């Protein structure tokens, strides 16, 4: 019979209309994202040795690292900057970090009004001036 398909469709629509809501009212309700979620970055400054492996792994030159020599002649991290405006969030930096210092966190709200705010300084040691620069190049 012609129209049977239409009736069947209307029936399904009826069920969907009175079924359980499948959308979430953001921002009143926040999604609980899985721990691996690529939301934003966090750096454990005491673990990072400033080796620059992450900067070299990055396909888009997002990371720049400043280091300085400490009194013990060892290299220390002075500043860790990420230009998130050009980040692909692929995770190659996190994956390649040899000292497991760089991580993702599910906190995803990074929207900001000014372009300068997309440049994130994840670590800054104000004690001494940077001496050696290991840039993305």
């Amino acid at each position, binding site marked *: 019979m012609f129209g049977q398909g239409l009736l069947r469709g209307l029936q399904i629509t009826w069920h969907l209309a009175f079924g359980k809501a499948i959308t979430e009212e953001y921002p009143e309700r926040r999604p609980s994202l899985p721990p691996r979620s690529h939301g934003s970055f966090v750096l454990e400054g005491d673990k990072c040795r400033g080796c620059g492996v992450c900067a070299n792994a990055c396909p888009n030159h997002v990371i720049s690292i400043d280091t300085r020599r400490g009194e013990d002649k060892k290299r220390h991290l002075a500043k860790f900057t990420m230009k998130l405006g050009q980040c692909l969030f692929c995770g*190659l930096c996190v994956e390649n970090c040899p000292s497991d210092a760089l991580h993702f966190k599910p906190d995803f709200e990074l929207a900001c009004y000014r372009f300068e705010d997309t440049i994130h300084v994840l670590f800054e040691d104000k004690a001494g001036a940077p001496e050696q620069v290991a840039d993305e190049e």
Partner: protein
Amino acid sequence: MKASAQLATEEIILNMGPQHPSTHGVYRAVLTLDGETVVGVQNVLGYLHRGLEKLAEDRTYTQFIPYTDRLDYLAAMLNNLGYVQAVEKLMDIQVPERAEYLRVIMAELSRIASHYVMVASMALDLSGWTAWFPPFRDREKILDLFEMACGSRLTLSYMRIGGVAADIPPEFVPALQRFLQELPRGLEEINGLATGNEIFQARCRGVGKIDLETALAYGLTGPNLRACGLPFDLRKVRPYGIYDRFEFEVPTLDNGDAYDRFVIRLLEIEQSAKIIAQALRDLPEGPVLAKVPRVIKPPEGEVYHQIEGAKGILGFYVVSDGSPKPYRLHIHSPSFVNLGAFPVMAAGGTVQDAVATLASIDIVLGEVDR
């Protein structure tokens, strides 16, 4: 003779796109119309050209993986798979068993997600608003699964040369099983809302017809070719990875019209679910990444590798000069080839038929323009 019949009529040119909801991206079709009838179509491409092939020459082999996500962004896993398998072929790398199974699961999930988008957007293009929701609701579950496994939802970058980026978390398998259980009910809803709907059928039965011979001449591949009646699927005829271990059918339909191209996607979703269930059952334990050197340096040479993408045959041609960066990379994208047949399919129909035809070809402009 009546006066109106003696009047000279002229064809008019109508620009569809580049900003048009039914072109599914920035694509322009220059239609030549005789009244309501389309007599000629000219494809105008290149609005989304990002020079990915050139970018590859300045990236290391691993660094290019995130860029493959941005080809066919609806089926990122399949692009990842095609690229990493091409490099692995060049370097002769043996991928661990568990990684192979995970790759199959992810690739098929990606195929389902891509087909869901096609089904939803085609229904939407034909004003089937309600039929948009069930596919997108179910696709959301797949994206959640992806996020669980690799942290991203759309641009996944999950595959690595020699395996996958990370093993799946423990909560992944139960969630996937739940998804597979709920999948038939979702398909039933889509069938009820779109496939069986008389208005939908009237809009796309016999529309944008292409016969097998013309389809082959234009190089159509994937579901569009199978909707013309040829059971050609690379997973069956030239299995790559471990696809020869799974039992599945290659669904075909005979008419080669927009309706068949729609229905074949739904049939393929069922088959993909079948493959995932088998892969999940046989999923072995073990490592997920082979022992590969930290700096990927394939030997001098070239390789061409094809996989069955969501839209058709997806090929990667990689030339290596022995350095850590590809000397040349070429991507054979199915959407680009399929779009070439659009003028033939659309000719003779009306403008609204052209919309249905374009939706049924299922193009992704990220892949067309690269």
